[in-house]
């Protein structure tokens, strides 16, 4: 899901860039040295996974997984999604150079919203909460991206209001599929490798608690 070049007006494009630079600067500052290769490697998994097409009746949609990025990477989802979008622009020409800002706000914002929903699971004590909140996070990722997309179209001009409605409606099946896939993926990760999920208690952040334990001595040896 992305918006192409040549549609949005200059103020919207500029707002997208300003927003992206601000959020990216903040989130990139949160990254440690060992996050750089990790976040990039995981970004490439999402990049590859978004090439998977899932059939809907006679046609098919590709997975977006913006919500899952939030569930796995937490706040680092934003720079990860930005990387994905820049790469997509360079490699496929999808989207375009001028809409990198808007597209990052759209999908990266969705990732952050998904993370917020995902974190709510700590307040509930129910069975299969990873599956339920993973699913909600997956749906939230698409939902908030769809809203940003619609808003950027509407603020460009009133002639795009109908287009905005069509895109919002077109996102409903995508939302359902993402919810199912992200939900079962979160449940799978919770069972197999809980460290891989973001915001796990009690050792909250860090990609993997075990990794931090094993790489620490190496870190201390290396001169800074």
């Amino acid at each position: 899901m992305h918006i192409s070049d040549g549609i949005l007006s200059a103020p919207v494009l500029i707002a997208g860039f300003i927003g992206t630079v601000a959020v990216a600067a903040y989130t990139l500052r949160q990254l440690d040295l060992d996050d750089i290769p990790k976040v990039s490697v995981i970004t490439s998994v999402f990049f590859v996974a978004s090439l998977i097409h899932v059939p809907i009746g006679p046609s098919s949609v590709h997975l977006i997984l913006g919500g899952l990025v939030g569930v796995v990477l937490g706040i680092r989802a934003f720079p990860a999604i930005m990387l994905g979008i820049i790469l997509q622009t360079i490699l496929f020409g999808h989207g375009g150079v001028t809409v990198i800002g808007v597209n990052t706000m759209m999908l990266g914002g969705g990732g952050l919203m998904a993370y917020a929903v995902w974190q709510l699971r700590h307040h509930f004590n129910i069975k299969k909460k990873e599956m339920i909140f993973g699913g909600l996070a997956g749906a939230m990722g698409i939902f908030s991206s769809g809203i940003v997309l619609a808003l950027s179209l509407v603020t460009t001009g009133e002639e795009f209001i109908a287009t905005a409605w069509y895109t919002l409606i077109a996102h409903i099946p995508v939302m359902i599929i993402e919810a199912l896939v992200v939900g079962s993926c979160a449940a799978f990760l919770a069972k197999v490798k809980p460290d891989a999920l973001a915001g796990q208690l009690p050792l909250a952040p860090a990609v993997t608690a075990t990794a931090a334990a094993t790489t620490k001595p190496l870190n201390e040896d290396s001169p800074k």
Partner: protein
Amino acid sequence: MPLDIDRFAKLESPLQRWDPRIKLFTLGIFVFSVALLKTLPIACVAFFLAVGILRLSNLPYDFVASSVKWVIFFLLPFFIIMPLSYPGEAAFYVIGLPFAWEGLQLATLIFIKAVAIILTTFSMFGTARFDVSMIALQHLKCPKILVQMLLFTYRYTFVFIEEMRRMQIAMRARGFVMKTNLKTMQVMGNFVGTLLIRSFERSERVYKAMLSKGYQGELHTMVKFKSEQQDYIKSALVLVTAVIILALDFSGLFLPAKQSWF
């Protein structure tokens, strides 16, 4: 869709010889000026300029077309949605829906600009090795951390595509067929989860290997850039053209696409 955008970086042409730093800067400005265009005739001029620049690069037609056809496919709905949903006077009615010429103009403008920009993207990134382009970006004040992450992500994309293909073959060998049902979604969720866990473990090995080779947050490269007079002449030509088309576009000689044809 070709993932290795730099497959033809070794071809000999004025674009490949262009200093990547100056090339990315100049064509970047060109792309932004195309994105700001509001009139159809000037957008057409920009489109032919983009085609001209791409022709100079000697990139094979098939290579470019395989990506561009997808972009065109995604843009086609605009030709249906825009004319039928444009607020204003309807020229005639199609099965009860108002059809406005202004909407069709707007769709055409969007289409031409988008294709022109994508063709230019190929001229920008298809004419130098990917790592060289990225290091050029770093010279253009792109944050170091971003450039490093882009290089890593690009590198590992190919690894994981292979990994995914192997896993898909294994799934098919066990008789899995994708359908529109809950089971498929569940299996796909587990599939992505497995891919993630493998990548986590791989990223740990990668990081340790990097540390043992002395990684401290800096990438050292042997790429050296050299800019000559020719590079600046090319750049000046493109920039002057970009300014001229923008000036013509804003001059009011042509009416914006929303108002009438010309």
